[in-house]
Each structure stands twice: as C-alpha cells, then as structure tokens.
C-alpha cells in the first residue's frame, strides 16, 4: 500500500487503530483526524466518576503507546466527505487528503429528542465537554433532575445525581422497566427496585411530549399531559452513528457502516471500520450484523482491522469478539459476558437471590448459554467470570 493511512476518528477506536497498525507492521504515514479538540480519552467515567467529581479530568487521557509516537494527530478537525473510489477525504477546512488506507472510527453521537420546547438546560453525556457542563448543573443545591431514557447511561447518570444530593431524580421511559432491552425482565425488575430503594423515581410506560419553559427548560411534559418540574434534563435515548461523511459511496449506512466478517467496508480491501460506528457480523453468534457500543469493541476491532488493512491477515479467522461490558450504578456493578440480548427468552438465575444481595443470571438460546450477567459486588463479578471460559468455548449459534 502506498501513501498514508488515514484514521477517521480520534477516540478509543482511532487510537487503538493507530497503535495496532504499527503493531501489524505499518511503517508508513499515519494520520488520525478527530473533531474533538482533545487527545483520546476514556468515556465510561463521564457518566459516573467525572460527574461525581471523583475523577480529575486529566486522569481520563489515554497514554498512546510509544510505537504510535510519530502518528500525526489532526484534532478539532472534521471530515466532511469521502470519495472512496478516488481514495480521498475532504476536511472541514476545505482541504482534501489522499490515502492508501482508511479506518472508519467516527463513532456515534447522542440521539436527541425532537419535541417542542427550549434547548437550554437539556444535556447529553458523550463528550468531556458534555460531562463538564452537566456537572456544573447537577451540583447546584436543590436541583431537580429528569433523565429521559432508562438505559445504562440514563441509569448511571440518575445514580450519580442521587449520590451528588440532587433534590429529585426522576427517570422517564416508554418501556416498562429500566435496561430491559439488553437485560430482560428478570434483572430489569431487580434493578428498578434497587434504584428506587436508593432514591431514584421512575415514571415508566410513557414518553415525553414537550419541554416546558421559555428560554430554558423548567419542566418535562409527558404524553399523558402531566408536567414534571425540572431544573436539568438529561437525554439518554440512544445514539446515532456518525456516517454522514461516507454518503455517496454506495455503502450500506443503515445504523452504522456495514462491514464484512473482517471489518472491511464496501468490499474494499483498503477501507475498514472499528468501534461503535461499525455494524459487523459476529462469527460467534448468528452472523447478523450489529453495532455494539461496548467499551471493549474499539480495542478488539482495531486489533483485527489493522491486520486486515496492512495485509497481515493470512489465515485470520473472522472477527468474533466475546462481548463484555460493565456498568456501575450506586453501590453495585453490573458485569456482563457474552450476548445476553440473544437469550432473553430463557433467563435463569444461576446463583444468588434476586430479592437481596448479589445475583448471577444466565441467558440461553436453544438451551445453550449465550450470556451471563452479575449484579452486585466483587463476588458476583467473579461468579460471572467463571462462566467466561464456557462462553468462549460454545459453538457458533445458527441463525
């Protein structure tokens, strides 16, 4: 491959891609382009330790490997378009850069609610700047917080807000239980109870119709007409893949950029995608391409994609990561291995008591264990880890 490799996106996926390209033997030019002004930093603490004021912002920065010391970082720069046939990308300053290889690592952005009402006072949590702005508001005395969206980030933010002493914390979601999509009824019910015991209020089964207030949000109007008073609103209603810049190249950009089983994009040998912008088939499961927003995916996918891009992939098996994620909420941690969402029809308690203390839950598909989730402390997490080897050994699921 001639010329340089351009990595589009300067977060965890972009960083790991650059490092792994060097590890895979690429000694040519390497440019990482990202729209945030910051060097890559760790996002999971944004909804927890950073909001709570326990993690100094400087502690979030990743330390790039020495092998990536000569990488060119173009920060505060957005790629506005790509012409894959011509092997060029266009930057927001109007300049055009040619490449020999391209890594798509532009990640996602928070989805926003499209309801009438003011924008001021409404927050999302994706970037360092988002978390800083939200922290300033959450630490005001007597603050009333409404979180829209009872997924992982919403529940983490709600827990953090309670911990900061917010006067009221209410979570609103059209679904009947928190985190029910990825975790299923059994654990979602347990989590609802444990959040409520710790001071979070839930209004479930209804959506948001509008935001009240003139210049700034003062309340959230629900579909049933009631209005919740709010000084701060957090929108945690999912994310959108940043793929607009790839339009016009004949790619499938339905919910992320579609890749093949080796993370190649559009059948091109010189374009790969990594991280949560990539919609990839996982050879470990049913082969259905999905975007995966777990923290482990950028690192796993960069390791694979870098080998593919530099042609060091002879005999490389299809990408088949074992998904893993965690979530810290209040005084408990959720730890997951495998794909619980593929086993929601057959959920079994493997250990512990859902009504008290630690609990370990198994998810099955066709009688096969496909995921485990632990809720609780260290012992629960260790219990889940014991199943990890089993999950790695399972035969692939057939569709």
């Amino acid at each position, binding site marked *: 491959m001639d010329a340089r490799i351009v990595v589009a996106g300067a977060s965890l996926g972009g960083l790991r891609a650059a490092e792994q390209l060097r590890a895979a033997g690429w000694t040519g030019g390497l440019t990482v382009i990202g729209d945030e002004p910051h060097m890559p930093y760790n996002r999971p603490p944004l909804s927890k330790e950073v909001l709570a004021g326990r993690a100094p912002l400087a*502690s979030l920065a990743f330390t790039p490997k020495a092998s990536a010391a000569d990488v060119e970082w173009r920060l505060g720069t957005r790629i506005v378009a790509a012409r894959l046939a011509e092997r060029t990308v266009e930057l927001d300053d109007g300049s055009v850069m040619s490449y020999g290889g391209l890594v798509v690592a532009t990640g996602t952005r928070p989805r926003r609610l499209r309801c009438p009402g003011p924008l001021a006072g409404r927050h999302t949590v994706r970037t360092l700047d988002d978390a800083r702005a939200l922290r300033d508001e959450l630490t005001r005395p007597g603050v009333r917080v409404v979180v829209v969206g009872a997924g992982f980030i919403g529940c983490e933010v709600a827990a953090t807000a309670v911990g900061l002493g917010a006067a009221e914390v209410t979570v609103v979601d059209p679904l009947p239980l928190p985190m029910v999509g990825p975790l299923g009824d059994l654990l979602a019910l347990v989590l609802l109870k444990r959040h409520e015991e710790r001071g979070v209020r839930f209004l479930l089964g209804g959506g948001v119709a509008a935001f009240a207030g003139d210049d700034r949000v003062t309340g959230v109007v629900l579909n049933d007409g009631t209005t919740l008073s709010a000084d701060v609103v957090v929108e945690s209603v999912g994310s959108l893949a940043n793929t607009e810049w790839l339009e016009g190249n004949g790619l499938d950009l339905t919910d992320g950029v579609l890749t093949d089983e080796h993370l190649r994009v559009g059948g091109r040998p010189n374009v790969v995608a990594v991280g949560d912008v990539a919609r990839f088939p996982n050879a470990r499961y049913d082969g259905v391409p999905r975007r995966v927003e777990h923290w482990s995916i950028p690192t796993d996918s960069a390791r694979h994609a870098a080998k593919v891009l530099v042609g060091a992939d002879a005999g490389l098996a299809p990408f088949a990561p074992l998904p893993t994620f965690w979530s810290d909420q209040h005084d408990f941690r959720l730890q997951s291995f495998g794909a619980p969402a593929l086993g929601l029809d057959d959920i079994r308690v493997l250990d512990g008591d859902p009504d008290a203390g630690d609990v370990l839950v198994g998810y099955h598909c066709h009688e096969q264990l496909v995921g485990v989730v632990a809720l609780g402390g260290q012992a629960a997490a260790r219990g889940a880890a014991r199943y990890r080897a089993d999950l790695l050994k399972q035969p692939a699921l057939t569709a």
Partner: protein
Amino acid sequence: MKVVVDMNKCQDHGQCVFAAPDVFRMDDDGHLAYVPDPDDALRDEVEEAADVCPLQAIRIED
C-alpha cells in the same frame, strides 16, 4: 519488562487476568495481584492487558 499498576485507579475488574493470566491474577479477596517484572516474552499479552483495563491503570515501563 517492568509492569506498574496504579492501585488507586484499579477497581478489580479483572480484564487483565483474562488477557495475561501469567502476569495478573485475582487473590482470594478478589483484589488484583501481579508479577511486577514478567519475562519479555509475555510483552504481547501484557500490552493487551493494559489495553483492556477499563481504568487504564496498567503501565508498562521498559
């Protein structure tokens, strides 16, 4: 190779143990224990362990 773990950052996730079981383990209390001066032959797996640490608490000092 010299490995340093910032134990103030470590939250005992245990991801490093999966990546480099020859270097990292969880003790009976569920806390991280590790070999501070592993053989250089283990560099790849130690680098992977450092990559997958959710707290980015593992540093490799050459």
